[in-house]
């Protein structure tokens, strides 16, 4: 890991790029973008921000995008909150521009692999990274590498049927506004100030999340689950409700081994994007 990598996180409103070397972000730029701008304009912004953090040590680029991704071809489809990005061949564009190795994946997969290289799941063979925020995203690490499934559709736990709809509906932050008329983050502040209603609401949220985690245990059964995203800041308030549900797991004798932790890593989006490069290098070493 002596080489440096540029990690880029493309959000709906901001671009973040960082030069990552030896697990440290040496230089980072965060820039607001006009998410309504045409495709080419936003691509030019991505070129610019990479140029600003890149130097001669940089061997590759990793990009995390909130969208469906064809990982092999490096194409992103229907990017969340960027309406003009319907089908962008981002890998090809960046490879031609910079002449470096480029890897693209969705933001949840970046989070999961980033946690393995630089965060809480270091040294763990099988883990799941779960992002709770404006959506519910997840990435699965299997035998120390990103596991994408046949159509890169593995780990889409948010879309799994739950109650009358799916998990994402009940676990994304907008559900708090819809159900209680108050934002999740207002409730978070209130819970931190000992507000009983806010704490009850997060305990209930934890119950629903516990059902999702049981689903993860009965499908891919990881050793550790790491939770990130803006709602993970409420971890200590939903932790109890979550375990109450999980403890109804019939394989209880084995549950002692399961660890569920809060990410707490602020820069994980950029680190995770950079980790795509390391994952790819180690995958090809294996072969």
């Amino acid at each position, binding site marked *: 890991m002596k080489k440096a990598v540029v990690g880029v996180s493309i959000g709906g409103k901001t671009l973040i790029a960082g030069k990552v070397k030896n697990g440290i972000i040496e230089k980072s730029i965060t820039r607001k973008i006009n998410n309504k701008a045409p495709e080419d304009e936003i691509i030019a912004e991505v070129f610019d921000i990479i140029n600003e953090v890149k130097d001669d040590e940089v061997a590759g680029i990793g990009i995390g995008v909130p969208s*469906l991704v064809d990982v092999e071809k490096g194409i992103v489809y229907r990017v969340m909150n960027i309406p003009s990005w319907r089908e962008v061949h981002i890998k090809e564009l960046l490879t031609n521009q910079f002449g470096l190795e480029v890897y693209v994946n969705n933001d949840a997969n970046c989070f999961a692999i980033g946690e393995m290289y630089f965060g809480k799941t270091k040294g763990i*063979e*099988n883990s799941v990274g779960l992002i709770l925020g404006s959506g519910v995203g997840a990435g699965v690490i*299997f*035998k120390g590498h990103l596991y*994408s*499934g*046949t*159509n*890169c*559709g*593995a*780990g*889409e*736990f948010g*879309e*799994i*049927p*739950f*109650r009358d709809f799916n998990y994402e509906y009940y676990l994304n932050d907008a559900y708090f506004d819809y159900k209680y008329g108050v934002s999740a983050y207002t409730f978070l502040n209130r819970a931190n100030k000992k507000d009983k209603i806010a704490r009850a609401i997060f305990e209930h949220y934890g119950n629903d999340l516990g*059902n999702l985690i*049981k*689903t*993860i*245990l*009965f*499908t*891919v*059964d*990881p*050793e550790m689950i790491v939770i990130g995203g803006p709602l993970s800041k409420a971890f200590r308030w939903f932790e109890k409700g979550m375990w109450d549900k999980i403890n109804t*797991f*019939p*394989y209880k*004798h*084995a*549950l002692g*081994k*399961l660890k569920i932790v809060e990410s707490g890593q602020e820069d994980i989006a950029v680190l995770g994007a950079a980790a795509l490069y390391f994952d790819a290098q180690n995958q090809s070493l*294996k072969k």
Partner: protein
Amino acid sequence: MILTDNGALIGVDLGGTKVAAGRIDNNEPGDIVYKLIPAKSDDPRDIINVVEEVIGQLFDDRVSGIGIGIPGLVDRNEGIVNDVQNIPSWKEVHLKNILENRFGVPVYLDNDANCFALGEARFGRGKGVDDFVGLTLGTGMGGGIIKEGFLMSDAHCSSGEFGNIPYLDSIYEDYCSGKFFVKKYGFKGEELAQAASEGDKLALKAFEEFGTHLANAIKTIKLSVDPKKVIIGGSVAKAGKYFETSMWKSLLDFPFPRALRDFDVIFSDVKNIAILGAASLYLDRTSRKVTEENIM
């Protein structure tokens, strides 16, 4: 990718009423023997004796390994049976140790659904499919995940236990196994299948409804492990033609339509697949070791 073994293997299928075993010689399935068990006995040794007897009938010095499929909770790493359907006396039976001491060859245990998936991978419709899910729909619902030709390794021996996943007011097993027909319609699945074959409207409706629930289970499988195929076995699979259409109809609203393009749900048609799968446990574990050592 599955390596072969030129020796002989024995596979054992432990059911609630009988123990069945079969032998595989040079990858060819051979004789099947079985014996009824005193399931109600409160001495765990009674049933261990039957298992040993059945294995003994097939055992000789060419046998290089024994695999056992168990309908219940198994610690596959330690080889301990924690809990078995219909055999109340078996709590924490160290079956691997017991049988290895008796026969002197490696013994591997796994749950019966994992054995089904493995059997399909080597001898059934999963041959040549590296990534698939085997689903057993019978009195219960179980599953096994085959990844890169091997049983998926996991942390708590609970991967692929799709039947236990929360669904509606309970879990998938209550809607996607024989339990659904008994609870909702008051008939056994076999009875309804018979009625459906005679064109009975209520029976046909029951299967149609079953198909929509099963579609949700398959969506959950697609969204979590994203396999190329789902292979369905167990007694309910025989009624596949009555619920297949409604299942596919419900799958059409899958959130990622592209993912359905190369996907298929097929029904198992191999006899004694559970025994063949149990015998394959030996190859799964030993050849997995070989490939993992090569990687390092």
